[in-house]
């Protein structure tokens, strides 16, 4: 619905006055005019950049190696100086973000150019690691917007994953498993801890938000996906590679205990300035449910279903306690879908052979959805007090 017709309806209902309607419309017109002007300027800037890129690309092989390197260095230095001047007085936030992201990208292209000119035969992982290290201070100082923070955080996760894969090649299979498990658990928790630090939370709220959300997301997804391990003989393989059950159980118990202790430490350390009750619960649940398949050593579809559903029921309970309605809805939806998958796993082969089977499957699906909806209504009818951001 367009804003004008929306506002008219609100005026008719007496929610706002005519004067307020006029004020809102006048404000929105002014804002749109500024957006249009800004959009046109961005288009112009983009056209200039594209033109420069095309001129450079057309003459790429005619340019000497040092001409390329020095031109890139001058471009980076010029943009850095511009960013320094713009960023320090915070007068033009959009320009500051654009310059910051441009430099972030140009740092990577410069690494690629040096590798190309000097025939370094470098690996993409090494380039990414160097890129993240040299660009991190710049991003932390100058980037403020949410998309820049998310871009950097995702780049960090991707680089961490690729670095693990590359640098752990020399380890044996169990060594790789141990290191991978450790990183998958502790990197998100460490980023979550960083989000709690005042320097990040108060002065770089966009980064703090990206750190918190990605940490919780990564761990909850990993714990959910862990249920798939019950379907395979991955546990037996890992135990074989470990060579000793004592070593494996010892490692898993120590690493899980350390992760739980780390989360409890974060909760206590930042208790005075940040309520980590809800997030801490999610982190603790995720750490425990990530470990369970690697401790139980059972190959069973029933256990897979129980693991997944119990995890999400507990998340639902936690969300309900902290009045996080969205997560309650998600938990109910996922548990309902998982129940339906159990039904298909048990009877799917026989049901799908006949029309009657399809009718039964469809009816069961509708029943499950209705059940889930009713359950959600019951829960949301009496929300507890509390709060989750």
């Amino acid at each position, binding site marked *: 619905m367009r804003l004008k017709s929306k506002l008219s309806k609100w005026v008719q209902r007496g929610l706002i006055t005519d004067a307020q309607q006029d004020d809102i419309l006048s404000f929105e017109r002014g804002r749109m005019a500024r957006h249009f002007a800004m959009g046109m300027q961005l288009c112009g800037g983009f056209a200039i950049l594209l033109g420069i890129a095309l001129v450079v690309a057309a003459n790429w092989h005619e340019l000497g190696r040092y001409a390329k390197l020095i031109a890139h260095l001058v471009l980076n230095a010029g943009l850095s100086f511009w960013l320094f001047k713009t960023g320090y007085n915070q007068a033009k936030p959009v320009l500051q973000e654009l310059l910051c992201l441009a*430099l972030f990208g140009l*740092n990577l292209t410069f690494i690629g150019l040096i590798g190309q000119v000097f025939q370094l035969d470098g690996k993409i992982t090494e380039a990414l690691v160097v890129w993240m290290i040299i660009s991190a201070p*710049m991003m932390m100082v100058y980037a403020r917007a949410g998309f820049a923070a998310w871009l950097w955080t995702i780049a960090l996760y991707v680089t961490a994953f690729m670095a693990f894969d590359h640098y752990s090649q020399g380890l044996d299979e169990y060594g790789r498993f141990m290191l991978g498990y450790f990183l998958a658990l502790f990197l998100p928790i460490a980023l979550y801890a960083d989000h709690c630090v005042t320097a990040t939370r108060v002065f770089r709220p966009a980064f703090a938000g990206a750190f918190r959300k990605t940490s919780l997301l990564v761990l909850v997804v990993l714990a959910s996906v862990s249920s798939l391990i019950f379907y395979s003989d991955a546990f037996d393989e890992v135990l074989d590679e470990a060579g000793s059950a004592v070593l494996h159980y010892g490692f898993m118990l120590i690493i899980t205990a350390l992760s739980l202790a780390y989360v409890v430490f974060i909760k206590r350390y930042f208790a*005075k300035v940040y309520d980590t009750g809800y997030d801490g619960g999610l982190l603790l649940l995720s750490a425990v449910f990530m470990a369970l398949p690697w401790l139980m050593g059972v190959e069973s579809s029933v256990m897979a279903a129980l693991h997944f559903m119990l995890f999400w029921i507990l998340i639902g309970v936690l969300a309900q306690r902290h009045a996080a309605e969205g997560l309650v809805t998600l938990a109910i939806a996922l548990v309902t879908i998982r129940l339906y998958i159990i039904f298909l796993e048990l009877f799917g082969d026989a049901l799908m052979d006949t029309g009657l089977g399809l009718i039964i499957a469809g009816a069961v699906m509708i029943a499950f959805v209705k059940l889930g909806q009713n359950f959600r209504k019951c829960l949301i009818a009496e929300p507890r007090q509390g709060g989750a951001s």
Partner: protein
Amino acid sequence: MTKNGDNTSYSHEWERKVIERAKKWGAPLAAMALLLPLIFFTGQIISHSAQEKDYQPWRIAVEGYDPRHLLKGRFIRYRYAFDWTGGAAAQSCTGFAQSCCLCLTGAQAAPQARLLNCDTTEIRRCDAVLEGIKGRSGGLVDFGLREYYVDERAAKVLDQLLRSGEVRMSVDLLLAPKDDNGQPQITEKARLGVLYVNGRALSDMLQDGSLPLGK
């Protein structure tokens, strides 16, 4: 909980101190954040250029693992066809996953190669030495540097020439020269120099038009 002038709450005193110090040194720190990449890139350019000047070129013949797939994207991928002293079968480097060294002797344009353990005294008789890593299962020794970036427009033509099998290729491996005492220095990371096609530098062929370029 501690607070500062602008009413920001800190969980601990050290946080407040760090923030206040960072604010005090704001401008230099902000400048350093931008200077760090520039210093790094300048250093890289200078160090790579200096290494190129210092190192000596040793021309090694190269061949494809599979002639049909020698060129991948803009990179020529190859393996070295060393002229082994006593034949390839005579080369060995004992031990499990141990560092092995490539020992080059003779003329730089057509060197003879041997595989030696890096810690043997025989290394002293080499003219140039490159360190590699022996495969875990006792397979090939890996010296890295197995791909060469080529001009995008030349890639297609080179691909056709390579497939025809009439092209001999070699590449300059840039290795550390002997030290002041006349002892060879072990090069841990070699560099690639010029790529030769039928004995001529690829860059020269591109410049004088003897290698017809695609579009």
